[in-house]
C-alpha cells in the first residue's frame, strides 16, 4: 500500500473505526464524523453488496425507468479514496470478536477495531408459504432485486406483488410502467393501512385500478404456485389463483440483527441503543434500521439523519442525544400525491378536521390535539404537507389559525382571512362559489336576500351547492353573513358526519353510481374519517339496496344483531329464533328446538309476538354451534334480529276455521318464502288473516292481507310499536298471485324510498298515502317493475346466514367468525 508517510504516522495514533454496512446509514454516519473531525479515525467499511454507497430509497424511480443507477449513487469511489476510507465491498462481515475487538469477514479477512459501528439495516420479510423459495420470487431491497424485476419485465407477462404498503406499491408501479400486467395482493382491507386511513386508501386503490393494476385487498396468500421449477402464480386462501411470471414479496422489513445477536449484544426487536447510538457494549455503536431506540424501530430514512448526527457528536466528543423522530411518508409513484405524517388515528382529546373535494380528487385530514397538530393525511394535494409536518414537529400552537388550517398555508397565514366567514366576506361579488353550476357569490347573496333562508332553499333556487356539494360550507358562510341569526336550519341530515339528508344520499348514490362506503364518504364530503354508528349501517343498507348482487356487504358497519344473527339481550347473552314458515312447525322441528334449548342451556323458551319460538340466554361462543344444530334439523334463521323481513303471522284460514274465506296459512307460507332474507330500512312484519275477524292482527302490520270472500284486501303502514298505527287500505285484489305481486312491489317501494331506521308507518305519514298509491297504482306497469326489482335483489339475499356460517361453505362470509373465539393469553 502506497499511502503517504503522514498517513502511516497518523495511523499509530488514530483510532480504528470499522463500519459494518455500506448503506445509507453507515455512510451517512461516516460523513457526519468526517465533517466534525476528519483525522480522528482510520475507517474501514464492509459492504455486502459489490458496489459503492447508493440511495436505496431511489430504487423505485430506477425500477420505473425515471432514474439510472448512476444518478442514485450517493458517494462514488472517489469519496472513499479522498477520505482514506478502505471499502471492502461484496464481502460481508460474518463474526464479531468482542474480546479481541475485531471482525471477521466471509473471505476470512480480520479487521481489528477500537470502535465498531453496526449499520446492517434491515432484511425484507419473506412470508413462509410453500413455494416462497422458487426462482422468480424476489424481494425489493437492493439493486440486484431491481435487475431481476427488469429482466422479468423484458419478457413481459404477469407480475404479482404481495404487499400493498409503500414498497409493494412502488414495485407494482414500476412493473406496470415496464409493461407487465400487475396484481397487488394485500392482506389488510385497505392499502398502506399503516400510513393512510381508509378514505385515503380507497382513493389510492381507485387511482391504481384506473391505471390498470388489479388490487386485491383482504387477500391472504396460501402458496406460490410452481411450473417447470419456476414460479407460475399465487393461490389465495379463498381459492383464487393468479398467474405470475414474477412474484415480488414486499410485505415488510425486519431489522437485520443476527450478527449483533450472535455477538451477544442486547437485542430486542432491533439492536438496543441509547440516545448516543451506543449498544450494550460501549465500544460498539449501531445506527439505522437495525436499531431499536427508545422502543422504536424505524423503517424510513428520515430518522437516520438525526441518529447519525448524535452518533458523530458522541464519538467526536460533542454529544447531543437523539430523541427519536416523527416521521412522514410520501409515495414515490408518479402522478399520485400522497402524504402522511404523525399520528393520524384521531380519537378524543384529538379532533379530526376533514376536507373532501371529490371533484378535484382531494382528501385532507388533519388531527388536532389540544392546540397542536398530531397527524396529517393528504391525498391529491400535498403542497402543504411540509408546512403541516413542520407545525407538527415543532409542536406549534395552531389555535389562532385552526378554522382555516385545513385550507393550507396560503389561506391560514392570511391574517384577517383566518376566520372563514371573514374570508368569504372578503370575496368579490363575482367570485365563483359553486363550480359545478357556475354560481357567483353575488347570485347566492341575492338569492338569500330574496328569501332563501336555508342551504336547501339556496340549492333549489340558484343551484349553488346542488350538485357535488363541496361548496356547502361557503353557502353556509354566506347565509350567516347575509342573515345573521335568521338562518334556518335545513332538514335533518343523515347524521352529524354529513350535511346531506337521507334522501340526498340515496339519490346521489344512484346518480353518481357510488358503490362503496368510503366512496360515498369521499364524494359526499363526510366530515369524519370513517363515519359513526348511525351513518355506517345506513350507508351499508343504501348501497345494498341500490346495487344488489354487486355491493359487498360490510360486516363492520352492521349492528351486532345482524353481524351475529341473533338478538343481544340485556345481560350480553343472545336469543335465537328459527324460522317457522307462516307460523307452521312439525313435531320433529319442535324436538330439535327442545334439544337445542337443553344442549345450550336456554334459560327461557318463549313464543314471540310473531308466532315463532325464541331461545333466550345463549352464550355468544355457542352461537355457531346452535345454528349448526338447528340447521341440521332443516331450520333456517328467522331474521328476528335484523332490519329485515321478520315473520308472516297467520290464522288457520279456510283449512280448519269455520269462518275462513281463503287459505290464509298457505298464503302466509308463500309470502314468507318470497320475502325472507330481504334487508329493509327497518324491521318489517307481515300478517295474513283468513277473514275480517282478523285473528292474525293484519291491520297493525307493515303489510297486512285480510282475506274476504271476493279476494284479498291489502293493508299497509301498520305498526304495533311505540306509537300504534292501524293500516291504511291500499287496494283490493282478486287472486293470490296478485296479492303476492303487490306485496313484493310495496316492499320494494319502501326499500327504495324510506330512510334507514324508518318503519313503514312514519314513512307513509311523512310522504302521504296518496304518494304511495300514486307510485304503485297510477303509474303504468309500476307493480310489475317494482316487483321485478324486488325479485332481482332477492336472488342475492335469500342465503341463509346460519347455513353459510355454520357449514363453512362461504369462507369469505364468515371471516368474522373469529369474533366468536375469545383471545388467549400466551404467556400468563
Amino acid at each position: 500500500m502506497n499511502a503517504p508517510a503522514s498517513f502511516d504516522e497518523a495511523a499509530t495514533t488514530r483510532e480504528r473505526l470499522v463500519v459494518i454496512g455500506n448503506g445509507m446509514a453507515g455512510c451517512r454516519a461516516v460523513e457526519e464524523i468526517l465533517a466534525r473531525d476528519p483525522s480522528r479515525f482510520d475507517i474501514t467499511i464492509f459492504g455486502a453488496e459489490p458496489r459503492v454507497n447508493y440511495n436505496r430509497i431511489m430504487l423505485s424511480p430506477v425500477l420505473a425507468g425515471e432514474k439510472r443507477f448512476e444518478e442514485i449513487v450517493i458517494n462514488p469511489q472517489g469519496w472513499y479514496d479522498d477520505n482514506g476510507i478502505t471499502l471492502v465491498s461484496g464481502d460481508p462481515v460474518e463474526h464479531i470478536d468482542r474480546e479481541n475487538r475485531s471482525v471477521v469477514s466471509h473471505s476470512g479477512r480480520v479487521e481489528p477495531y477500537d470502535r465498531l459501528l453496526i449499520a446492517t439495516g434491515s432484511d425484507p420479510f419473506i412470508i413462509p408459504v410453500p413455494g416462497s423459495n422458487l426462482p422468480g420470487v424476489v424481494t425489493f431491497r437492493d439493486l440486484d432485486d431491481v435487475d431481476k424485476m427488469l429482466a422479468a419485465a423484458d419478457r413481459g407477462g404477469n407480475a404479482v406483488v404481495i404487499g400493498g404498503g409503500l414498497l409493494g406499491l412502488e414495485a407494482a408501479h414500476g412493473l406496470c410502467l415496464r409493461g407487465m400486467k400487475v396484481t397487488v395482493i394485500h392482506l389488510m382491507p385497505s392499502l398502506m393501512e399503516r400510513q393512510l386511513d381508509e378514505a385515503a386508501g380507497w382513493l389510492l386503490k381507485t387511482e391504481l385500478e384506473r391505471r390498470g393494476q388489479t388490487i386485491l385487498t383482504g387477500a391472504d396468500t396460501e402458496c406460490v404456485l410452481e411450473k417447470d421449477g419456476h414460479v407460475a402464480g399465487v393461490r389465495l386462501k379463498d381459492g383464487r389463483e393468479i398467474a405470475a411470471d414474477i412474484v415480488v414479496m414486499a410485505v415488510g422489513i425486519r431489522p437485520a440483527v443476527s450478527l449483533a445477536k450472535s455477538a451477544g449484544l442486547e437485542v430486542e426487536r432491533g439492536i438496543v441503543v441509547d440516545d448516543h447510538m451506543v449498544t450494550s457494549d460501549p465500544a460498539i455503536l449501531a445506527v439505522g434500521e437495525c436499531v431499536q431506540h427508545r422502543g422504536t424501530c424505524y423503517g424510513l430514512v428520515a430518522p437516520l439523519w438525526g441518529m447519525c448526527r448524535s452518533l458523530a457528536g458522541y464519538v467526536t466528543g460533542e454529544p447531543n442525544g437523539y430523541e427519536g423522530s416523527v416521521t412522514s411518508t410520501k409515495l414515490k409513484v408518479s402522478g399520485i400525491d400522497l402524504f402522511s405524517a404523525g399520528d393520524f388515528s384521531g380519537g378524543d382529546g384529538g379532533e379530526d378536521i376533514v376536507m373532501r373535494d371529490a371533484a378535484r380528487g382531494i382528501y385532507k385530514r388533519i388531527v388536532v390535539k389540544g392546540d397542536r397538530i398530531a397527524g396529517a393525511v393528504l391525498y391529491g394535494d400535498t403542497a402543504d404537507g411540509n408546512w403541516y409536518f413542520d407545525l407538527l414537529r415543532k409542536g406549534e400552537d395552531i389555535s389562532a389559525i385552526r378554522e382555516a388550517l385545513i385550507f393550507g398555508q396560503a389561506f391560514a397565514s392570511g391574517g384577517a382571512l383566518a376566520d372563514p366567514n371573514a374570508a368569504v366576506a372578503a370575496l368579490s361579488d363575482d367570485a365563483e362559489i359553486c363550480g359545478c353550476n357556475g354560481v357567483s357569490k353575488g347570485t347566492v347573496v341575492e338569492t338569500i336576500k330574496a328569501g332563501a333562508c336555508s342551504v336547501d332553499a339556496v340549492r333549489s333556487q340558484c343551484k349553488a351547492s346542488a350538485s357535488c356539494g363541496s361548496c356547502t360550507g361557503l353557502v353556509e358562510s354566506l347565509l350567516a353573513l347575509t342573515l345573521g341569526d335568521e338562518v334556518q336550519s335545513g332538514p335533518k341530515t343523515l347524521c352529524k358526519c354529513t350535511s346531506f339528508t337521507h334522501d340526498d344520499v340515496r339519490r346521489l348514490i344512484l346518480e353518481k353510481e357510488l358503490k362503496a362506503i368510503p366512496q360515498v364518504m369521499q364524494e359526499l364530503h363526510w366530515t369524519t374519517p370513517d363515519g359513526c354508528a348511525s351513518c355506517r349501517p345506513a350507508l351499508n343498507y343504501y348501497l345494498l339496496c341500490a346495487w344488489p348482487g354487486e355491493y359487498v356487504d360490510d360486516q363492520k358497519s352492521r349492528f351486532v344483531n345482524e353481524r351475529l344473527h341473533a338478538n343481544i339481550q340485556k345481560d350480553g347473552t343472545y336469543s335465537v329464533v328459527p324460522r317457522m314458515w307462516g307460523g307452521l312447525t312439525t313435531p320433529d322441528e319442535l324436538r330439535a328446538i327442545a334439544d337445542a334449548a337443553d344442549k345450550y342451556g336456554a334459560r327461557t323458551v318463549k313464543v314471540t309476538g310473531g308466532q315463532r319460538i325464541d331461545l333466550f340466554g345463549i352464550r355468544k361462543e355457542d352461537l355457531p354451534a346452535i345454528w349448526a344444530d338447528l340447521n341440521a334439523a332443516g331450520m333456517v334463521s328467522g331474521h328476528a334480529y335484523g332490519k329485515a323481513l321478520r315473520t308472516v303471522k297467520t290464522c288457520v284460514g279456510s283449512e280448519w276455521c269455520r269462518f275462513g274465506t281463503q287459505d290464509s296459512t298457505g298464503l302466509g307460507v308463500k309470502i314468507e318464502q318470497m320475502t325472507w332474507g330481504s334487508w329493509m330500512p327497518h324491521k318489517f312484519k307481515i300478517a295474513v288473516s283468513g277473514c275480517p275477524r282478523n285473528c292474525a292482527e293484519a291491520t297493525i302490520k307493515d303489510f297486512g292481507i285480510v282475506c274476504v270472500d271476493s279476494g284479498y284486501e291489502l293493508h299497509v303502514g301498520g305498526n304495533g310499536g311505540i306509537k300504534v298505527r292501524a293500516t291504511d287500505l291500499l287496494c283490493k285484489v282478486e287472486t293470490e298471485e296478485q296479492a303476492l305481486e303487490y306485496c313484493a312491489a310495496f316492499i320494494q317501494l319502501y326499500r327504495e324510498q324510506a330512510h334507514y331506521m324508518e318503519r313503514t308507518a312514519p314513512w307513509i305519514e311523512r310522504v302521504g298515502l296518496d304518494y304511495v298509491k300514486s307510485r304503485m297504482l297510477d303509474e303504468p306497469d309500476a307493480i310489475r317493475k317494482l316487483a321485478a326489482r324486488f325479485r332481482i335483489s332477492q336472488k342475492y339475499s335469500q342465503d341463509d346466514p346460519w347455513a353459510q356460517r355454520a357449514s363453512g361453505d362461504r369462507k369469505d362470509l364468515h371471516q368474522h367468525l373469529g369474533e366468536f373465539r375469545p383471545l388467549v393469553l400466551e404467556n400468563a
Partner: protein
Amino acid sequence: MIGTWLDIGPIDQIEPGMARTLPVRDGEEIAVFRTMTGDFYALVNKCPHRQGPLSQGIVHGNAVTCPLHNWNISLKTGEALGDDEGCVPTIPLKVDAGRIFLLRDAVIGRQPPVESKAA
C-alpha cells in the same frame, strides 16, 4: 410503562374495525379493539351505563358505540362521549413486532367489583 407485558397474539387476529374478547380467570373480561386506521386499544368489556359488552359494538374513529343503548365510549380514555357521563377502565396495550401486549398488572390484578354489603 414499567411492568410485565402479556402477549395475546398477532395483530391480524383482529380485523380493522372489529374487536375480540379476552376472558380473565377470576377477573373481568377485556375487550381488545382495532380501529379502522389500525390502532389497538383494550378496555374492560363493560359499558359504564348498563354493563353492555362493548366488544360487540360498532367501532368508528377511536370510539365504540355500545350495542345495548348506543352510548359512545372513547377507546383511548374509556370515557363516555357526548352528553353521557361515565368511564370504563382502560388496559395499557402496546404493539410490538406485530404482536399485541397487555400490561399484566392491569389484566390479572383487576377484580370484578364487589357489591358492598351493609354492615
